[in-house]
Each structure stands twice: as C-alpha cells, then as structure tokens.
C-alpha cells in the first residue's frame, strides 16, 4: 500500500518535497537569489527527468486518484514547462524580492494541476482545480507596485470565483441526478436528461473559463497583460495544458455516452474561439495581450482535435500541448527578456530587433512560425494533426473555417516577424545580454520546436500511451 502510494503519487510527492525544501530555505538563512535559482533549476530539471522513471498505472483512495502512462507523460510536459519557465525568466526571477514565494506558489499550483490531471472524482477535481487556480491569482499580483498587476489579479480571482461557483452548481446537479461523483460511475448513470445536460453545461463552463474558450475568455487578455511575464507564460501554457488534459479525460471518459451531444458544442465553440481570438489578436499592440489572444485562437484548435472523440484526438491534443509549451514559452521568453531589459512590451518597439539581436529574433520568429503552424516547425505537425483528428467526423465546413483562420493568424504572426526583420527603426532595442540560463532555455525551446515535429517517434510514443 505504501509502496503503491509512493510510486503512483511520485510526481506530486517530489514536487511537494521541493516545495517544503523551499519553505525551509525561506524560513532559514538568507541565500542569494542566484544560488537559490540555480538550485531550483536543478531541482526542477531533476523533477522533469525523474518523471520518466518508475511509471506505473493504478489508482488510489478508492479511485479518487488515478495515474497511468499517459497521465505521467502529461505531468512530464508540465514539469518541462516549469523547468523552462525557471530558465527563461531567470533574469526577472533573480531580481525578484520574493523568489522563494514565487516558486512556492508556482509549485503549489503545479501540484494542484498534477492532482487535477490525476483526479478520478469530482471532489478531487474541484479541490485540485482550486489549488491550481488560487496561487496563480496570487502570482498574478506579483508585481506588487504595478497598478495593472493588482487589477489583473483582481479580475482573475473574481472571475475564477464566479466560474467555480457555476462549476459547483453543475457538480451539485450531477450529484443530484446521478448520486455519484466518481468518474468511473458517472458514465454508467448518464441518460441524457435535460438536468444532466444542464449540469454538464455548468461543469463545462469551468473548463471553458480556464481554457479561455469564447465567450468565457474575456478575463484572459487583461490578466495576461497585467501579470508579470513569467506568470503570464505559466497561465497561458502550463495551466491551459493541464486543463486541456483533464478536459480530455472528462469528455472522453466521463461524458463519453454524451459524445454525440457535446461534439456539436465543441465544434461550434472551437470555431467561435478561433475566429474571435484571431479577430482580437489582429489589432493588439502589446505583445502579452497579443499572445493572449493568439493563445485563445490556439485553444480553438485544441477543441477541434478534442471533438474527434478518438485515440487520435487524445494523442494529437497531448502532442499539441507539448509543442505549444515549447513554442509559446519561447515567444514569452523573448518577450520577457526584452521587457526585463528595456521595459518594452509593444510590438512597435520590436522594429529592427534583428539588427541588434539576431539570436532572439530567430527564436522569436521560429516560435511564431510554430504557433502559426508553418513547417518545418513542430507547430505545423501539431496543428495539422489536430485538424486531421477534427476532420475525422467529416464536418468539412468547420474544418474549412479552421483552415481559413490559419491565414488570419498567419497575418498577425507575420506582423511581428515583419517588425523584427523588415521594418526600419532608428533606435532599435539595443543589444540584450542574455542570462546564460535564459539562453539555454531558448535553445531548448528552439530545439523542441524544430525536432518534436520531425522526429515522428515522439508522436508515436504519445499514441501508444493514449490507447
């Protein structure tokens, strides 16, 4: 039993260990930020690597906690993401006055996500969802002296509180309708009554809110813009990834009997999300806001893949999130480096960047290409597989709209590329001295962007896990 406990919950335990270590350090004697950050980076790397060992599948606590190969892999993606965040934003982190607190909050949120992915029960789901949300709201306020930072975190906590209220209402209805909150029993008791559908809609809005599906997305851009870059990137990449994973489980396992019903909804929302995300992204000036809307559009694609209700759907979503981690974090990394050095966050400021900073320009360009889905970057494969999975139901009209959306998205991604590479600027951003670990992070991201797609075994591995 204990053995099982240790093995199955190993990722959460490791994270908890790191978290307590940080707490102790915080309480104990002063350590310089540099050293602490290096330690954290090493620990997170260890955590990531460790994630690939001792993978077992099984369940704990009477089915409240489940894990298997795929879930372990999803957790590895998240571990990788936080490792990359610790690398990419090392400059900002080093200067932060509350470095340990930041990671304590971050790790608690990650633990929440891990439990979220592993949850096998609505109670577990709710608890971990809150655990994954509340610390992030606090993190959003991490630039304590910035007005917009507190506004952002206020918007986030209030919106998410409302959304969890609605979620809970939904859960209570499900409980009322089926008498159970276990993931394995719910599907057997679903009969498609209106009450159940209503409950499902309420439940789904929580996902929609967290994933920023239109029209539940409105908080996203404001929060992204107001939060520190590291938090924004965490919100847009890690937290979305985790929610996407659990949404997979929820839709494919828990609400499997209703798939013919939710298919319509997911398709519709996917298209609306893409269109609205793209339309708003078109005219953004602030890079964070821009990336927020672009990430909304990306979610549209995730939904497209989700709609297929098949092994391909699962694997392509997981694959896409993996790619998305690399691409979006690279973009945020570059934006963070620039914002950290010169405080510039407007796309206009990026004009002529290539003249002074060719390396980060290429990283940025590659990440944008990957987000836009242009070969040979991994984003191409990710997007294509999502679309292919979505097309398996034969709804070509929506596929067509999705494909056309890729053009709009290309337009605004190219707008940044154009600013960086083509536009003239008398006073471009000066040469940025990148922290070595930031550079390392960018190199890892770049490598990921290029290789994840071309090396087809990555995808095959995910497929074998998804079956």
């Amino acid at each position, binding site marked *: 039993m204990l053995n099982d406990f240790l093995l199955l919950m190993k990722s959460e335990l490791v994270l908890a260990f790191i978290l307590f270590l940080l707490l102790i350090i915080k309480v104990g004697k002063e350590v310089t930020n540099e050293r602490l950050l290096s330690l954290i980076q090493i620990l997170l790397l260890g955590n990531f690597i460790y994630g690939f060992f001792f993978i077992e599948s099984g369940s704990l606590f009477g089915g409240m906690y489940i894990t298997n190969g795929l879930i372990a892999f999803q957790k590895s993606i998240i571990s990788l993401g936080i490792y990359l965040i610790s690398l990419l934003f090392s400059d900002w982190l080093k200067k932060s006055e509350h470095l340990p607190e930041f990671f304590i909050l971050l790790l608690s949120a990650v633990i929440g996500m891990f439990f979220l992915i592993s949850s096998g029960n609505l109670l577990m789901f709710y608890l971990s969802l809150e655990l994954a949300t509340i610390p992030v709201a606090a993190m959003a306020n991490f630039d304590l002296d910035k007005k917009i930072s507190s506004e952002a975190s206020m918007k986030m906590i209030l919106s998410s509180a409302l959304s969890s209220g609605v979620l809970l209402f939904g859960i209570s209805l499900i409980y009322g309708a089926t008498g159970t909150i276990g993931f394995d029993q719910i599907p057997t008791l679903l009969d498609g009554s209106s009450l159940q559908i209503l409950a499902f809609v309420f439940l789904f809005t929580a996902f929609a809110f967290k994933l920023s599906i239109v029209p539940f997305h409105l908080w996203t851009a404001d929060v992204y813009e107001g939060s520190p870059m590291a938090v924004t990137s965490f919100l847009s990449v890690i937290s979305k990834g985790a929610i996407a994973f659990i949404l997979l489980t929820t839709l494919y396992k828990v609400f499997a009997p209703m798939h013919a019903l939710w298919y319509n909804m997911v398709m519709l929302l996917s298209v609306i999300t893409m269109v609205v995300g793209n339309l708003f992204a078109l005219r953004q000036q602030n890079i964070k806001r821009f990336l927020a809307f672009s990430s909304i559009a990306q979610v549209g694609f995730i939904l497209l893949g989700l709609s297929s209700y098949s092994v391909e759907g699962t694997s392509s979503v997981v694959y896409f999130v993996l790619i998305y981690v690399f691409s979006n974090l690279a973009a945020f990394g570059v934006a963070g480096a620039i914002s950290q050095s010169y405080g510039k966050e407007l796309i206009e400021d990026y004009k002529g960047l290539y003249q002074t900073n060719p390396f980060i320009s290429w990283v940025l360009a590659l990440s944008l290409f990957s987000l836009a889905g242009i*070969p040979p970057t991994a984003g191409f494969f990710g997007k*294509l597989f999502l679309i292919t999975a979505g097309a398996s139901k034969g709804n070509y009209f929506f596929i067509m709209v999705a494909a056309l959306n890729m053009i709009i998205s*290309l337009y605004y991604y190219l707008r940044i590329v154009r600013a960086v*590479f083509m536009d003239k600027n008398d006073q471009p951003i000066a040469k940025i001295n990148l922290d070595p670990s930031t550079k390392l992070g960018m190199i890892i991201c770049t490598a990921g962007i290029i290789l994840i797609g071309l090396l087809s075994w990555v995808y095959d591995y995910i*497929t074998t896990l998804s079956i």
Partner: protein
Amino acid sequence: MNLTLLILLPLLTAVVILLMRSGVQVKWSALIGASVQFVLALILFFAFRKERASGNEAQMLFELQYKWFPSWHISFHLGVDGISVAMILLTAFVVIAGVLVSWNVEKMTKEFYLLLVLLSLGAYGFFISLDLFILFFFLEIAVIPKYLLIGIWGSGKKEYAANKLALMLMGGSALVLVGLLGLYFNGTEKTFDLLLLSKMQIPVMVQKICFPLLFVGFGVFTALFPFHTWVPDGHSSAPTAGSMFLAGISMKLGGYGCLRVATYLMPEGAREYANIIIVLSAIAILYGAFATMMQKDLKYINAYSSVSHCGFVLLGIGMLTKTAIAGAVMQMVSHGLMTALFFAVIGMIYERTHTREVNEMGGLIKVMPFITTVLFIVGLCSLGLPGLSGFVAEMSIFMGSWQNPDPFHRIATIAACMSIVVTAVYILRAIGKTAMGPINDRYLLLEDAKWNEKLAAIILIAGIIAIGIAPFWLNDLITPAADEIMHKVAGK
C-alpha cells in the same frame, strides 16, 4: 539513386552556410551546394533514362519509403516519374542561376542564401514526395522563405507584397489541406500515400467537393484567375533571385499539385470541373496578356506575363488530353526557365540603370550587348519562338487542346492561341523600349554583364535552347507519365 540526397544536400548546404563567417564563404558554399545539386539532378535524369531504357516500366522509379507518423498512415515516401524529374531539373537550373545572380547581395548575405537554399529544399522535396502529407509539408516550407526574401531584400511596396503573397499562398494551402483531408478520410482505407490513393475508388461526391478545393488551392500558387493578384506585386517587389525562384519554381509547385494531386487522384472531379478550369485559364491567358500590355515596369510586365503563361499550364491540365497535359508540364519547365531568366535580366538591367520603367530606358544594346541579347532571347522565348522552349510547350498544349472536338474547347483554344499575338505586342514593346531606340546619355557608361551574371544567363539559356531545339528528350520523359495520368482520368 537515392532520392533523399536531393533533400539532404540543401540541408547540408544550409548548415554549412550557417557555419560560414564571411559573405564570400557563404556565397561560395551556396554556389558549390547548388552546383552539386545541379549535377545530382543531371545524374538523376540520366539514371532515370537508363532505368527506363532498361525496361523498368514501374510508374515511379527510385522509390523509397521510411516510416513517419505511422499512426496517421503517413510515410516518408519518395519516388519520381518523368514529370518529377523534369521539375527537378528545372529547379536545379533555376537554383544555380539564382545563386549566381545574387552575387552582389551585400545586406545580410548569410540569411539571404540560407533562405534561398531553404526555398529550394521545399521545391525539391515537393517534387519527389509521393505522400500527400509530406508533399503538403514541403509545399508550405517554401512559403515563409519567400515572405522573408521579399520583405527584407525587396524593393517598392515590399511589406505589402510579402504579406499578400504569404497570406494568399497560405490561403491556397489551407484549401489544399482541407482537400487532402477529404481524400484521407474517404478512400477505402485511410492513407496519405499518393500511389495507394490512386488505386482507390474515391466516391464521386467527395471528388466533387475536394477537387475544387485542391485545384483552387494549388491554383493560387500557379496564379489561377482570379487568385493571381499576389503574382504582380510579389514578383515585382522581390529581389532578383527571389523573383526567379518565385516564378521559376514556386509557381510550378501549384501546377504540379493541380496535376499530380487534384487531377490524378480525382478523375471524376477533374472531368466535372474541366470546363470551369478551361474558362478560368483562358481568361487568365488573355486577360493577363492584355493587362501586361499596359504595364510600364519591367518586372510587372514579366509578372503579368507569368499570369498569362501559367494560364497555359492550367489550360493544358483542364483540357484533359495526354498531349495537352504533357504540354502543360513542358510549359511549366519552359516558363520556369524563361521567367527566371527574364527576372535575372531585369535584375541586371535594374542594377545598372536603377530603374525598371521601360519609358526611361532605351538603346541599351549599345552599352550592354550581352544583357540585351539575353533579353532578346528571353523575350522571343516568351512569345513562343521556335527553337526556344516556349514554342514547344505552347504548341503541345494547342495540339492537345484541339483534340477535344467540341466547339467549347475549340473556342477556348482559339482564345488561348490569340494570346500569342498579344504576347508579341507586349514583349516587343518592352524590348523595343529598353534595348532599342536612341540611348539616353546617362546610360552611356554602363557596363555589360559580369562573370556570374553571364554564367547564370548561359545556364538558363542552355536549358531553354536544349528544350527548344531538341524537345523530344523532354517529351519522352514526360509523355509516359502524362499517359498514366490520362489513363486514370479517362478510365471510368
């Protein structure tokens, strides 16, 4: 011969270019890479002929198949038939000439050559892939380098042109994507493999939906009316080598796709929509030609004439006869060489006179006999002079088109034929105003072509003349493959 070499070599070249320090090193490594690739293409051509001569009747030669995303039924499947070999030869010619012509690029040399090489990589990969997924992959690879080439090294309204080009081409490939998915899901089994798909019976309903998607999608690349508007702006803003690659190679991707993917895999669809294709391409041919007549900028002249000439490619495909299809392929090769050469010459002239307005030039024969001779040759090729490649291709298309006995096809053919007169008008106008007439005093001290420009022009002219004088080798190369396609289209 191992076809992966064709992809690996540009990759290797790209890596070498990345490692080089100075501009000169970059140029030379690009040139060496392009030359080796050129030799490789020739080797492929001769190996292909040898293989065929020795009685190998397989549809595709030198097939290779590696596993790649097996769960999506994708494989890295390569192989060539006559049409692909012809296109690869074309690419090799244009690439080496493009590299030579760009010798004077001083701004960001390394990036420039890197993008050129990537662009050529996309083209090579596209022409040899037998799997629709990797075909699409390579198709899209080629888009962004074009965007950057135009946007960074271009002139005029370059950002606008680059944007338009990238977006329209991506739009085209979005349509292609949807069409491909339709094929993938509606065959008797899910696969992206071209050869497998060709043996399957795709439901007629699906063909009717997917054919237009694929054809229009690829058509955007090859300037299908009315989706051709990226052509004039894109070409005229691009740097010389960019225009050459764009018109010489990239537009051919579309034609090849229309033929190989849309028409070959969906014969019923092709028959269903053939008349619309014919109408659109006949419009493109004439309308492009008339629009060219009014242009004053040399690059616009060539760009619009490309619209007109690429109309022939689509017309040949739409006519659905073996001869016309073979002619369409020949037209692709011929137009590729010719238009690349045309852009090269325009680049050379522009570099010297610093204008592309025909009205501001005149009498350039006097100071640059070589360049103007090339201009004459390319102009004459464009207007279909026998002995140069354009004639062979156009005549094949006309002969093939005429094999359809009904009035509709006849009228379309005659309309297309009429463009040879209009072409003569605008070409002679352009040549007459630039090369002939009294010379402007400020051009008296200009110099003729340098070694790299000469070499580039000679390589392309060699290709043009080789086809023009002895078309039978190209015809022999293409016809069996065209036959195979027609066989599929004709067979119920």
